[in-house]
């Protein structure tokens, strides 16, 4: 079997009032079954990369393959294999979790029974109260909505999961529940995960390898333990300062 993900020279510039270089010549491969972390400050290009892998954005240069299929030319082969969670839980807010998930399921060829059973199972593991499954989503807290987003991504049984800051902005408890769920899912057969995060500790505990991205470039790509060993630091946050010469927070303010 081919690598789960292979990117070569990916670049993307957005042309608005000013040109923004969101991704600048990024190359990497992810073997099957790996949890691949991407950490970087706001605006460093994490979501842009995730969107390219999701077939939602076409790169200017370079290519990306998912299980050997090009994301631009062979998107119809890529789509059944992937799913995604983004920071903002995008749903039809007026209707219930159930109605949203039933819709999502049908897009992946799943019937309503199967959808209900699978999503309730996942939501149960995430500590989601089943009663609220039938309530309009706009009544639910951000944490609950994000759990539904997690269920939406996992229940279609993708081979590659793209988790784009799944825990950003969550209350500590929801955050922990989501992290624990991801941790358990990691062991399931054949699942490969790309996880972007703000949270160095999350990257350290969940990821097999971590890429540090700044201004659209990968400035480091190692196992967390290797990163720590090489730099002689005790946590990734310090490694980050070491590489960039800047405080994590400083970079955030700049962007």
């Amino acid at each position: 079997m081919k690598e789960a993900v292979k990117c070569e020279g990916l670049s993307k510039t957005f042309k608005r009032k000013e040109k923004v270089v969101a991704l600048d010549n990024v190359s990497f491969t992810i073997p099957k079954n790996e949890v691949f972390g991407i950490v970087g400050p706001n605006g460093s290009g994490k979501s842009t990369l995730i969107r390219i892998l999701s077939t939602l954005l076409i790169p200017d240069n370079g290519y990306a393959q998912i299980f050997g299929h090009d994301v631009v030319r062979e998107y119809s082969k890529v789509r059944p294999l992937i799913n995604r969670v983004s920071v903002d839980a995008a749903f039809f807010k007026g209707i219930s979790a159930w109605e949203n998930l039933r819709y999502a399921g049908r897009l992946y060829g799943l019937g309503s029974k199967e959808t209900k059973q699978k999503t309730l199972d996942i939501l149960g593991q995430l500590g989601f109260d089943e009663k609220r499954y039938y309530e309009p989503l706009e009544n639910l807290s951000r944490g609950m909505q994000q759990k539904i987003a997690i269920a939406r991504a996992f229940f279609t049984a993708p081979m590659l999961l793209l988790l784009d800051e799944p825990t950003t902005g969550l209350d500590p408890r929801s955050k922990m529940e989501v992290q624990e769920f991801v941790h358990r899912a990691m062991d399931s057969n054949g699942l490969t995960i790309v996880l972007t995060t703000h949270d160095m500790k999350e990257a350290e505990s969940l990821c097999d390898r971590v890429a540090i991205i700044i201004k659209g470039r990968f400035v480091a790509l190692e196992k967390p333990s290797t990163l720590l060993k090489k730099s002689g630091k005790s946590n990734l946050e310090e490694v980050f300062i070491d590489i960039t010469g800047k405080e994590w927070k400083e970079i955030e303010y700049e962007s």
Partner: protein
Amino acid sequence: MNLKAQAYGSIAFIERNFALIKRYIGWEVVFLTYNIVNALAIGLIGARMGKDMVLYLVVGAMVWGFLSILFHEISESIAWERWEGTIEYTFMAPINRFTHLIGNCLHAVTYGVIRSTLILVLVVLFFGISLKGANLPALVIILIVSGLSFVGLGLIAAVLPLLSTEKGAYATHIFEAVLLLVSGVYYEIEVLPVWIRPLSYISPATYTLRAMRAALLQGTGLGELLPTIVLLLVTGSILIPLGIIVFRQAEFYAKKTGKLKRSG
């Protein structure tokens, strides 16, 4: 996914759109009431001029209502997805754009036919008009066939909210307003200034209205209406694929320039 799965997938959109209608049922009642009252009010303009004038005007209100529904349901199903940000999830799902759009269109046509029929029935009851001489089957056939062309136009219009949520909505309304003016909804197109009339001749609504009036007022038979039916079928079978092609082009452009994104 195979053909069966794709057909199955189009159910997703019908089901979802009806779930949204159910959720905002209050608005549904408001719009329906408004449509009915509007049709009655327009019919009443012709009350002194006899039953034929009433029917003439009511057909206008009905066809206009039908066209607006198709148009809006289709382009709003895209606009709505953009507001909610779900468009990215729909677009990355393993479903053909054809399935996606046809699902939305099927919903719009079903919904439009139900509403238009309801309005016609209520108007007929309100005015106590006898439809004895009318050719009702022809009426329904023309309504459905015209739906194909309106769906095609709706698909082309749906490109606008895909590229820009807000400006897209403006443009859709203006497009619709032009159709209202040129298609002879409440008058014969001959009363329009000559320079506008070429637009009347290319609007499928013009032919729909003529044929429906003939079927309802003169009881014209299907044989005589056949040329119009064929014309509408041909227009529809050009406009729908064209709409899908244009939509896919716009999708490509949006993915190239990053226009799909809402935030995050």
